[in-house]
C-alpha cells in the first residue's frame, strides 16, 4: 500500500470505493446521557476533578454494593429510541459483560445484551452537498444502556512506572447505538455521525460533545467484490474521537484492506487503532482468541419493564426533530432545501434563526446572514451558537442597521466575530468603530464631484463607451469616503452624473 498520503483534502476527494470493491461500514456510537447522577450509582456525573472525587462505594466496586437504576437514564434511552424510529421494548434485560481491566471496578460492565431497550430503527442521512445531495436511510440495529468505565492514565510523566486509575467516570450512563452495515463510504459514515449527533442533541439526550468524550465511535469496516452477496472479513476501528478521524481512519483502513485483497492476501479479523500522525491504521490485536465476555443477566437487577403508557408519555414530550423542522423551514420560510438543512443541523442554530426572524421579520436575509457570517465566525472561534455571546435581538438589530443605511453590509459583517465572542449592542459598536455609513447625500455628491474632477481622463474613456471604468471610479469614491459609503448609492450617483 502507498505509504505516503496527501493532505486531508486528498483523502476526502478519494472518498470513493476502491476499484472493484464495495465498502461496507457499520458504526457503534457511545454517547453519554445527560443525567445528574450515574447509571447505577447516585454519585454525581462530574468531570475535570482530581481523581476519585466523584465516586460512591458503588463506583468503587466495594464488596457488598448493589446497583439501582437511574430512572432518568431510562427515559432518555426511550427518547433516543423513539427519535430514531426504533421499537422500544417493554421488557429488557441488563447483563454483565465480564472482563478484567483496572478501570472496570467490578470486573464486569453492566450493559444490555440479548434484550436491549430498543431495536430496529433508522435515520435519514443527507450525503453530499448542493446538487449532489442525496438522502440515504441508514438502519439502526439496536440501542442499549450501559455504564462507562473509569479512566486509566498511562502517561509516564504523571504515573511513573505505573498506571493511574481514576473512577470518576466509572458508571456514567451511556447509550450504545449500533448501525446496520448500511454505510458505503467514509463520507457517508461521517454524515451519519453528524446526523445522529444532531438528533441526540436535539432531543437533549446527550450533549454529544466529542471533545469531552460524550460521543465516541467505533467502526466496523469490510470490503467485498462488487456484486458479491457475502460480506468480507471485517476489522474494527476503535476510539475514533473526531469526525475528521472517522473519515481519515476509514480511508486508511479501506486502502489497507484493498491492498491486501489486491495482492491476493486475506484480511484478518482484528481490532485496529488509527494513528493520525502517520495516517495509518495498525492492528491492536487479532481476534483469533475471540473475546469471551461471558455475558449473563445481572442477578442484582431484575428485568426492566416499561409500560406502554410510559413510552407514549415520552413520545408526547419529544421535541420537533430535525427532519420535521427542515420541512417546516422550507415551507414556512420559503428557504431552499440546502439552507433549511444547514439551519436545522443543530437545534441551537435553528432556534437562533427562528428567534432572529421573530425579532426582525423577513426570513431569507436572516438565513443568508446566519449561514454566511455567523457560521463563519462560530467555526473560526470553535464555538456552538449556544456557547456564543451573540443574542437573537442583537443580531436582528445589526441587520436592521444595514437596512436603514446606518452602516454598510461590510461594516456589519466586520462586527459579527466580536458579537459572537463578546456580545454587545450593535448600534454602540458601529459608533465606536466609526463605521457609520456616509448616507448624507450632500457629502456623497461632493465626494463624487471631487473624483470626477480629478479623474477627467477616465471620465472621457467612460463616456467613449468603456463602461467598466465605472468600477474604478467607484473605488476612488469609496476610498475618499473611507469605505463608509453604501456602494449602491455611490453607483447610483456616479451613473447619474456620468450619463446625465
Amino acid at each position, binding site marked *: 500500500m502507498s505509504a505516503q498520503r496527501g493532505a486531508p483534502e486528498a483523502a476526502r476527494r478519494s472518498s470513493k470505493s476502491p476499484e472493484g470493491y464495495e465498502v461496507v461500514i457499520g458504526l457503534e456510537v457511545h454517547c453519554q446521557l445527560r443525567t445528574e447522577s450515574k447509571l447505577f450509582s447516585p454519585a454525581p456525573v462530574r468531570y475535570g476533578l482530581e481523581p476519585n472525587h466523584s465516586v460512591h462505594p458503588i463506583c468503587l466496586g466495594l*464488596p*457488598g454494593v*448493589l446497583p439501582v437504576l437511574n430512572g432518568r437514564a431510562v427515559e432518555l434511552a426511550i427518547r433516543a429510541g423513539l427519535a430514531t424510529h426504533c421499537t422500544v421494548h417493554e421488557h429488557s434485560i441488563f447483563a454483565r459483560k*465480564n472482563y*478484567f481491566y*483496572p478501570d472496570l471496578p467490578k470486573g464486569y460492565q453492566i450493559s444490555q445484551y440479548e434484550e436491549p431497550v430498543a431495536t430496529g430503527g433508522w435515520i435519514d442521512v443527507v450525503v453530499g452537498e448542493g446538487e449532489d445531495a442525496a438522502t440515504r436511510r441508514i438502519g439502526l440495529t439496536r440501542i442499549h444502556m450501559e455504564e462507562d468505565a473509569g479512566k486509566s492514565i498511562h502517561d509516564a510523566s504523571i504515573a511513573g512506572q505505573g498506571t493511574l486509575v481514576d473512577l470518576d467516570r466509572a458508571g456514567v450512563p451511556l447509550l450504545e447505538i449500533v448501525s446496520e452495515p448500511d454505510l458505503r463510504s467514509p463520507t457517508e459514515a461521517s454524515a451519519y455521525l453528524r446526523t445522529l449527533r444532531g438528533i441526540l442533541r436535539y432531543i437533549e439526550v446527550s450533549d454529544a460533545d466529542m471533545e469531552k468524550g460524550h460521543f465516541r465511535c467505533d467502526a466496523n469496516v469490510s470490503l467485498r467484490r462488487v456484486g458479491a452477496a457475502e460480506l468480507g472479513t471485517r476489522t474494527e476501528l476503535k476510539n475514533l474521537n473526531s469526525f475528521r478521524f472517522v473519515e481519515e481512519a476509514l480511508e486508511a483502513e479501506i486502502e489497507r484492506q484493498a491492498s491486501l485483497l489486491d495482492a491476493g492476501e486475506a484480511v484478518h479479523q482484528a481490532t485496529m487503532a488509527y494513528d493520525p500522525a502517520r495516517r495509518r491504521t495498525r492492528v491492536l490485536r487479532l481476534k483469533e482468541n475471540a473475546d469471551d465476555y461471558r455475558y449473563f443477566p445481572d*442477578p442484582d437487577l431484575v428485568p426492566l419493564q416499561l409500560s406502554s403508557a410510559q413510552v407514549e408519555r415520552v413520545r408526547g414530550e419529544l421535541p420537533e426533530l430535525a427532519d420535521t423542522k427542515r420541512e417546516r423551514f422550507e415551507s414556512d420560510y420559503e428557504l431552499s432545501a440546502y439552507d433549511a438543512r444547514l439551519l436545522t443541523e443543530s437545534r441551537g442554530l435553528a432556534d437562533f434563526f427562528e428567534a432572529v426572524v421573530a425579532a426582525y421579520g423577513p426570513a431569507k436575509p436572516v438565513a443568508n446572514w446566519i449561514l454566511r457570517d455567523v457560521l463563519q465566525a462560530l467555526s473560526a472561534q470553535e464555538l456552538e451558537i449556544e456557547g456564543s455571546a451573540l443574542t437573537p435581538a442583537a443580531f436582528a438589530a445589526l441587520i436592521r442597521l444595514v437596512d436603514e443605511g446606518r452602516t454598510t453590509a461590510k461594516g456589519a459583517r466586520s462586527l459579527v466575530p466580536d458579537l459572537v465572542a463578546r456580545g454587545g449592542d450593535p448600534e454602540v459598536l458601529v459608533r465606536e468603530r466609526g463605521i457609520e455609513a456616509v448616507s448624507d447625500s450632500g457629502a456623497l455628491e461632493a465626494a463624487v464631484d471631487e473624483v470626477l474632477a480629478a479623474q477627467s481622463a477616465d471620465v472621457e474613456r467612460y463616456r467613449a463607451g468603456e463602461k467598466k471604468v465605472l468600477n474604478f471610479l467607484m473605488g476612488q469614491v469609496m476610498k475618499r469616503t473611507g469605505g463608509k459609503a453604501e456602494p449602491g448609492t455611490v453607483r447610483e450617483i456616479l451613473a447619474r452624473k456620468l450619463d446625465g
Partner: protein
Amino acid sequence: MTGPLGSIGELRAELDAGDVSSVELVERALARAAAVDDRLNAFLGLRVEGARADAARSDERRARGEVRSPLDGIPVAIKDNMVMQGEPTTCASRILEGFVSPYSSTLVEKLEAAGAVVIGRTNMDEFAMGSSTEHSIAGPTHNPWDLSRASGGSSGGSAAVVAAGIVPGAFGSDTGGSIRQPACFCGVVGMKPTYGRVSRWGLVAFASSLDQIGAFARSAAEVAVLLEAVSGHDPRDSTSAPEVVPAWSRGLDGDVSGLTLGLPREYAAVDGIDPAVSDRVGEAVAELERAGATVREVSLPHAHTAVATYYLIATAEASSNLARYDGVRYGRRVETGAGLTDMYLRSRSEGFGGEVKRRILLGTYVLSAGYYDAYYRKAQQVRTLLRQDFETAFQSCDALVTPTSPEVAFALGSRTEDPLRMYLSDVFTVSANLAGLPGISLPCGFAEDLPVGLQVLGPPLEEGRLLRIADAYQRRTDFHTLRPPEST
C-alpha cells in the same frame, strides 16, 4: 462470669429490671468468648471498644426511657461478610486482608437502629463457599458439641457462637443452606427468610440471586425478634421484597392445628441419609401431628436435579461477583514487577483458597462461549421446574418438612478431599434458595450425641407460618434448651 448468656427474652427482662446493664452484658459476652473461643475458633474479630461504646449508649437511652426495640442493648454477632463502617470485613479470605469498610450494610444499620450491639465478626467458609467452615483463612470453627466435628457452613461461626452461649443471637447468610445446615450441626435454630426479605446491601455477594441474610438463636421466638429487626424493603437493593414485614413474634401461639405438613416423597429415597436422622425427623413429625397438624405425602418431581442446578447457577454468579477482587482498589496485592496481568494472576491465585478457585473455575466454564446454553441456561430452565414443583406442592400443604442435612456433623477434614460429596450433602437445603422460599432448621433430637435438624420450608413470604410451627414444636420439646457439654 464466663457461663453462657441467657436468651434474648431473659436478657431483656434483666435489662428492664435494672439487674444488669448492656455494658455488663457485653463484658459477659466478651468474657465468654475469651473463655471458649480459643477452642471453637468461631470469631474472626471481636469488636471490643466499639461494642462497649454502643452498649454505654444503650444504657444511657434506657436510663432516659428511650429503649429502641426488644434488641436494645443485646449483644449479637454478624458473619464476616456483612460490612460495617470503620470495621474490617474479610469473608475469611486472604484477598480481603486489611480491608476496612467505608460504609455499613443495611443489616448493620438496622441493628444500630434497633440498639443491638455487634460484638464481633464470625468465622465462615471463604466467601460463604462451603458447608463446613473449614475453608477459612483462620482455620475451621469447631462444633461446640464435639470439637472434632465441623460446625457446618458456611455460617459455622454464627451457629457456634449461639450454641456456645457467647451471644443469644447472630446473623448469617444462606445461599444454599449456609444458615440452616450449621444451625442443624450446632443444635440451634437458623432461619433463611424469603429471598429479598432482608436487604443484601452490604452483604458481600456470593451468588446474588440466591444469597439471603438470616438469623440464629436457640429458639424460634428469638429468631422472630431478630428477623423483625432486620427485614424490610430497601431501595438500595433492587431485589428487595416490597412487602410489609408482619410482626412475626406476635403470631407465636403454639397452635398448629389445621396446618397440613407435606413430606416430599423423593427425599425419603436420598442416598446416604443417616437412618438415625430419618428417625429423629420422623419423631418430630409425629410430635407436630400430636400438636394438631395434619401430615401428607407430596411430590417434588425434580428434587434430584436441585444440587446440580444449584452448583451451576451459584458458581456462574460467583465467578462474576468475585472478579472485583483484583488487587487494584482494596485487599491484597501481590506484585513482582512483571506487569498488570501478572499482578492479577498472583493476587487472585494467592488471595483465594482452593474451594473458591474451584468454584470460580466452574462458574467461568459454565458461562463461557459454547457452554452457556448447555449449562447455565439449562440450569435456569430446570430452576423454573423446581419452582413449579414447590408451587404445586404448596397447593396441597402449608409447609414442607424434611431433614436439614442427611447426616449429623461430620468429622473435620473428612470431606475436604471430595468436593462433589460435600456438595451433595446440600440436597435438602439448596431448593429453598433456587425457589426463593423461606426455610428454618430447628433441633429435633440427637444421633451419636450430635444434634439433628428438622427443616421446615414454606411458600414465599410465609416466614410467620414457619416460625409458628417451629415455636409450637419447641413449646412441646426441650432439645433447644440443651447446652453443649461443659467441655466447651
